[in-house]
């Protein structure tokens, strides 16, 4: 019944490497591998244009996609486990709506109040947007964590999260109505999601933050395995439910908050990857699922980024459309196949 999982881990790692290299090679200007390696090694003989493209555009973008994909996927897995709901994802608790609200406040109000359209401020505007997103996401998360200590049922908490999301969206709607047209456009573009917005120092900060947070999230595997049994059984096995819920939701929320701050709301990866991973591994053991979703999330994000940048689209395709376009059929087919297997058993 169980198949060994190490070939899968190997395959996923190979997939990440392959997509990463392809991400560096392909794009509007294709660059051969040898030249990329030379550019990375700091060789002066590589044409300046190519060097610039590789070092200041493609490498940051690929790195961002890798860690963002991993983070979103892990966050989705944590939400699905703690709520025991297959439809839960990073966006269900309103955390990404919180980020949107933060950005909306900064982008949309700066124009009306300060008289300067933030969209024209460039770098400073980007930093302000990231900060606003983090503040927005973390405040919604703090609210959710507070509520999670007060209400008992998971379903109640889930519904409250969804309601907070709607509330945030409503406020955003009002803000949009009163803002300048170009600010609204800047906000909409942010909402499409992108791995290319992060560059330079910010990229380093983002990647190092995620490299700290992702291993930290691994510390919760035993807790999450116990949560699978349901609240009462988990508690009887010595789990402190309140603390467990706080830790898992907190870890998941921080991951989403940071990814959303830097990349905008990226849909689908958080919802889809855990399902895909469970189906591929045929396991519920989080000791396997956590690293599995991390790798798969990273690979899928790289693939989506690659497709979004395919020649012909010229970077015009928003990542969010690609994640859904690739993700939805894959998920549907995996689930369909699984259903058939279950019938045969």
């Amino acid at each position: 019944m169980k198949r060994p999982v190490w070939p899968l881990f190997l395959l996923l790692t190979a997939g990440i490497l392959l997509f990463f290299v392809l991400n560096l090679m392909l794009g509007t200007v294709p660059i051969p591998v040898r030249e990329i390696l030379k550019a990375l090694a700091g060789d002066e003989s590589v044409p300046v244009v190519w060097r610039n493209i590789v070092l200041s555009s493609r490498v940051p973008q690929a790195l961002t996609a890798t860690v963002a994909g991993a983070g979103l996927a892990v966050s989705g897995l944590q939400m699905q486990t703690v709520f025991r709901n297959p439809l839960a994802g990073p966006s269900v608790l309103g955390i990404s709506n919180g980020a949107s609200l933060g950005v909306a406040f900064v982008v949309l109000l700066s124009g009306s109040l300060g008289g300067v359209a933030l969209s024209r401020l460039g770098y400073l505007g980007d930093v302000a947007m990231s900060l606003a997103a983090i503040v927005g996401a973390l405040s919604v998360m703090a609210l959710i964590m507070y509520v999670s200590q007060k209400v008992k049922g998971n379903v109640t908490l889930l519904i409250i999260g969804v309601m907070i999301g709607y509330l945030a969206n409503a406020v955003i709607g009002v803000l949009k109505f009163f803002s300048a047209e170009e600010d609204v456009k800047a906000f909409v573009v942010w909402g499409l999601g992108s791995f290319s917005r992060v560059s330079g120092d910010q990229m380093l900060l983002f990647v190092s933050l995620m490299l700290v947070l992702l291993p930290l999230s691994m510390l919760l595997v035993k807790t999450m395995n116990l949560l699978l049994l349901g609240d009462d059984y988990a508690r009887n096995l010595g789990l402190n439910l309140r603390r467990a819920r706080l830790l898992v939701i907190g870890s998941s929320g921080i991951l989403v908050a940071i990814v959303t701050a830097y990349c905008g709301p990226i849909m689908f990866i958080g919802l889809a990857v855990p399902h895909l991973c469970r189906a591929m591994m045929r396991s519920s053991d989080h000791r396997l699922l956590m690293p599995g979703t991390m790798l798969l999330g990273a690979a899928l994000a790289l693939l989506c980024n690659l497709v979004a940048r395919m020649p012909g689209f010229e970077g015009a395709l928003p990542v969010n459309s690609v994640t859904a376009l690739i993700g939805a059929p894959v998920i549907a087919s995996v689930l369909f196949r699984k259903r058939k297997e279950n019938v045969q058993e």
Partner: protein
Amino acid sequence: MEHLSIGYAVHGGRDRVVAGDICASLMSGEMTVLIGPNGMGKSTLLRTLCAFQPRLGGRIVVQGRELDTYTEKELAQLIGIVLTSKPDIQNMTVTELVGLGRAPYTGFWGRLSAQDRQIVRESLSLVGIEPLGGRLIQTLSDGERQKVMIAKALAQQTPIIFLDEPTAFLDYPSKVETLQLLYRLSRETDRTVFLSNHDLDLALQMADRIWLMESGRLSIGTPASLAADGSLARFVERDGISFRADDLRILVRH
């Protein structure tokens, strides 16, 4: 050997006393069955005894210590539970699930030692489901699944096992089999087995001791003694149903 003596008031909502002033004790190596009509607080009693919800008053003493003084980890090594509801778990094997019963003993990552795995194997064989070891939970029948949960409780190695209507969704042969299993386990492993049940005829035939919970009172005794003092007749008999005390039979007029 005295295990547990309780005298307390149960609650639901703001100090709503469901049953008060209960004084009783459970013995190890015995199977005690809790019976009574719905809504009399059987589940509340069980949840309170598991320390899932606070008692309203009185004392619960287990192995000479107040239940409140046990830490979560100690409780997990003291009381194992089996519930009515079946956990909705996909893609987990029977062995893995029973292995989770070792959680109170395993370390930070939940990795099973060789000894843990040995205990899991023994639990599976005690319940008689070794052949199911590699099966996925979602492919099991309800009866098999309940046995797996009992094996989980065994792997937990607690001196006490509480079961909340463990046979509720099972067909008749599985009900009998499960109760026989629990009876055998209480003897072979010298555990305290305490379960609530609605299958009165089976309970009367197999239980060492019956707790009959009715509104405002708890009658305790062996099936024969409760039959003799008329408690069972009072509980069972109504229009069309009669109870024959000499051979513990419930008769239905038709």
